[in-house]
């Protein structure tokens, strides 16, 4: 699990004269599950596309270990791009031929009850996502890049999706990199949380560490001095203050109730903070 499967150095990419990725540094190890979070339009999908080879960087390098070659990299974009005129059977056959896949596990598709003759164009988003996932997993990938697709899926398909990912991780030690907004069902899955802002990662921690580093205080009136408030929310009497970086001596110094917050809220705070910084810039 310790060898890096992907190493990104100094990655820069501009899109329509806007710098989207700015000397981004990042590495991923075998079997690691990292999640990328950030506000809309910050460049998460762009980064994923860059790692998948769909977009090419202006500067910097993406170093892949030999096991993360293009044939062993799976990419599911939020556009769920496939050849829409093909039927499911044709798409599977095409994918198998191109990637030289001997056996194709169609249990996932079977659970949806879709017919081989149906055209991709007529599938729902969820069915397409599962199809895409089946195709990509049949490659036995060692690197999986999944853009934000979970929110498109109904709860049952979402479950199937996540279970399939877990299966891949146990079977192949697949490294998984996902982009997520919603964390409701997957908050225990990522081992690393990366928050993207201004074209690079501003946070790169384990969820446990993050939970230790950010606490919430709800009180009336302003916050006492000396507390590093990263982000505050609320218009009324009671405001939510997110303290980051938090340390235990702050608990001793101030007689406040520092609440533990779960990962989704931490992420939300980071995103909110990002918006605030953008407003002030």
């Amino acid at each position, binding site marked *: *699990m310790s060898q890096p499967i992907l190493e990104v150095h100094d990655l820069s990419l501009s899109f329509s004269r806007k710098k989207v990725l700015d000397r981004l540094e990042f590495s991923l190890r075998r079997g690691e599950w990292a999640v990328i979070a950030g506000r809309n339009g910050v460049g998460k999908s762009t980064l994923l596309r860059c790692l998948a080879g769909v977009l090419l960087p202006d500067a910097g390098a993406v170093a892949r270990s030999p096991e993360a070659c293009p044939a062993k990299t799976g990419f599911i974009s939020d556009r769920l791009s496939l050849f829409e005129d093909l039927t499911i059977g044709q798409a599977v056959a095409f994918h198998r031929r191109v990637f030289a896949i001997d056996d194709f596990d169609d249990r996932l598709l079977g659970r949806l009850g879709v017919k081989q003759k149906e055209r991709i164009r007529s599938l729902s988003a969820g069915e397409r996502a599962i199809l895409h996932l089946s195709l990509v997993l049949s490659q036995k990938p060692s690197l999986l890049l999944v853009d934000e697709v979970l929110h498109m899926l109904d709860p049952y398909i979402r479950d199937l999706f996540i279970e399939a990912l877990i299966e891949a991780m146990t079977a192949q030690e697949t490294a998984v990199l996902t982009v997520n907004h919603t964390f409701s069902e997957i908050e225990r899955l990522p081992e690393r949380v990366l928050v993207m802002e201004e074209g690079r990662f501003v946070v790169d921690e384990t969820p446990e560490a993050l939970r230790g580093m950010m606490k919430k205080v709800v009180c009336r009136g302003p916050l006492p001095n000396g507390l590093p408030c990263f982000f505050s929310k609320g218009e009324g009497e009671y405001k939510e203050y997110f303290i980051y970086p938090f340390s235990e001596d702050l608990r001793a110094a101030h007689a406040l109730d520092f609440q533990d917050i779960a990962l989704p809220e931490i992420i939300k705070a980071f995103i909110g903070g990002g918006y605030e910084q953008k407003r002030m810039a």
Partner: protein
Amino acid sequence: MNLTIDAKSPLPAYQQVIQAIKLEILSGGLRDGDPLPSIRDLAKLLKLNPNTVAKAYYALAADGFSENRSGSGSIVRVPPGRRDHLRQAMLEGEFRNFLEKAVSLGFSLEDITQLIARAKK
């Protein structure tokens, strides 16, 4: 087997897994020689990262409560004498939690003793 992970709990997920499995062993749900669910199955069930489950299993094995059978997963081991020791440790843990909670609510030691006496009846 009753296994849920409390997201709000300050306890990291893998520790919760360890606790839950130890509870099962204590309550007799898991006996010596029973197979533990595969990492894959448990991860899928609990929506946990397989590494997390692996970590828990590793800790269990280190503690002596499981044995790794290469190829066919892990099986439960209840080392002789460890069961009682475990029971003791778990109770102590719960008791400490109870005390902390009571103190934070403002109860004194006498109040707590009275509560226990009343419960005995």
